[in-house]
């Protein structure tokens, strides 16, 4: 017990700020992948064959590529080879590359979650929208997507939960986040090794459980009555 308390004295501040890094990664990547995933879903349901082909290819490529490899590609190839820099600040640059990697990977899953939501919308809704003279984009924006999102809340919640946990992969991109810190702590404080694991697990559980409860609640509350 004494040892565990001294771990908090030594690393408490760092743990909180490192986990704050994970939360920031989650926040920006969630916004990014929601936007990109929605665009991809629109492409996949659009009447234009080349858009559909692009959306399908994107999803198949990035859904089937390990996130670690996308992260390593971002750091080693984008930054290392092509010298892509989003920021002159070294750490901020890696942080932004990590957001990009998480966004690219998770937007494939967001796209599929939204598409499963689109499948909950009866075909007649789209036909009625077309029949009153709405073309594809207005029909999608005003009729299909609002209902699709409500039908996709539960799967989108699952994607968000996966994203929260996958922020730990940003360690592959040298971002200061909690799983990187965990390695350091394990190295210097092997005496409380198991407790370090459990502590970090609790950090995630505290964040993930409310997300799960909230999405379940919302998906029931916002369900479209038919």
């Amino acid at each position, binding site marked *: 017990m004494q040892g565990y308390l001294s771990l908090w004295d030594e690393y408490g501040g760092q743990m909180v700020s490192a986990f704050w890094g994970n939360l920031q990664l989650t926040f920006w990547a969630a916004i990014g992948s929601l936007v990109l995933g929605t665009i991809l879903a629109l492409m996949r349901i659009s009447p234009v064959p080349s858009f559909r082909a692009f959306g399908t290819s994107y999803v198949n490529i990035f859904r089937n590529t390990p996130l670690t490899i996308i992260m390593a590609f971002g750091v080693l190839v984008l930054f290392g080879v092509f010298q892509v820099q989003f920021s002159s600040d070294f750490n901020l640059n890696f942080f932004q590359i990590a957001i990009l990697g998480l966004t690219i990977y998770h937007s494939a899953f967001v796209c599929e979650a939204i598409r499963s939501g689109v499948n909950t919308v009866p075909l007649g809704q789209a036909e009625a929208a077309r029949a009153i003279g*709405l*073309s594809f984009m207005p029909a999608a924006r005003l009729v299909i997507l*609002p209902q699709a999102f409500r039908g996709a809340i539960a799967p989108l919640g699952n994607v968000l939960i996966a994203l929260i946990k996958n922020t730990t992969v940003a360690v592959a991109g040298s971002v200061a986040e909690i799983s990187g810190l965990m390695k350091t702590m394990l190295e210097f404080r092997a005496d409380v090794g198991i407790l370090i694991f459990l502590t970090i697990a609790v950090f995630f559980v505290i964040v993930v459980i409310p997300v799960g409860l909230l999405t379940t609640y919302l998906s029931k509350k916002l369900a479209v009555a038919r």
Partner: protein
Amino acid sequence: MSTDSHSNSAKSDLTPIVRLSAVNKHYGQLHVLQNINLEVSKGEVVVVLGPSGSGKSTLCRTINRLETIDTGTIEIDGKVLPEEGKMLAKLRADVGMVFQSFNLFAHKSILENVTLGPIKAKGMKKAEADKLAMSLLERVGVANQKDKLPAQLSGGQQQRVAIARALAMRPKVMLFDEPTSALDPEMINEVLDTMIGLAKEGMTMIVVTHEMGFARKAADRVIFMDGGQIVEESTPEQFFTNPQSARAKDFLGKLITH
């Protein structure tokens, strides 16, 4: 193009509102529409009858291109229906459609269902669209339900809202695709009464239905389809009392036995 369907009525009296010429359509091997020729003039009420699978619903749906066609042309008020894009959307706005399964926008209120088209497809001001929608909802008798969601209404009420939604676009022609087939028997009449009211006011209508009473009462012309072809075309009086083709006689014979 004039957005007001009433202003060019002088011209419309001469050109048919809807004209199908040599329309063919296949579903794989099945030839669902076989060389269909049909003209509907302004103010005319055409009822399409026929057994299931005769192609009557498909015919109705091709007129605003919810179904594509293989060959032939479809004209709305003298303009050929384009294949895709903005022009198609514009022409569709002139064709009101009422579906068997109502298809009201499930996430929008009754009032919003009716105002969506005028505001978003025609650029009407919201206040003006609200006023128009309320007068139409009043007319179909569901104005007091305006803030409810479609699922909170009965089938008959939903279908009357769907008619108001189509009318809000001030269409040149209204298509009804089996509008009463999904309704409980006691709700069929309230929808048919609304449609008869429309017919009396001079709305051009193409109605696919199994309601023989409506055909007798409101139709100017009856079209009988079977196997993807127009088999017989006559006045309701003539069709019901003295059908010419064997297939029409057979169809009517089956109806009367119950």
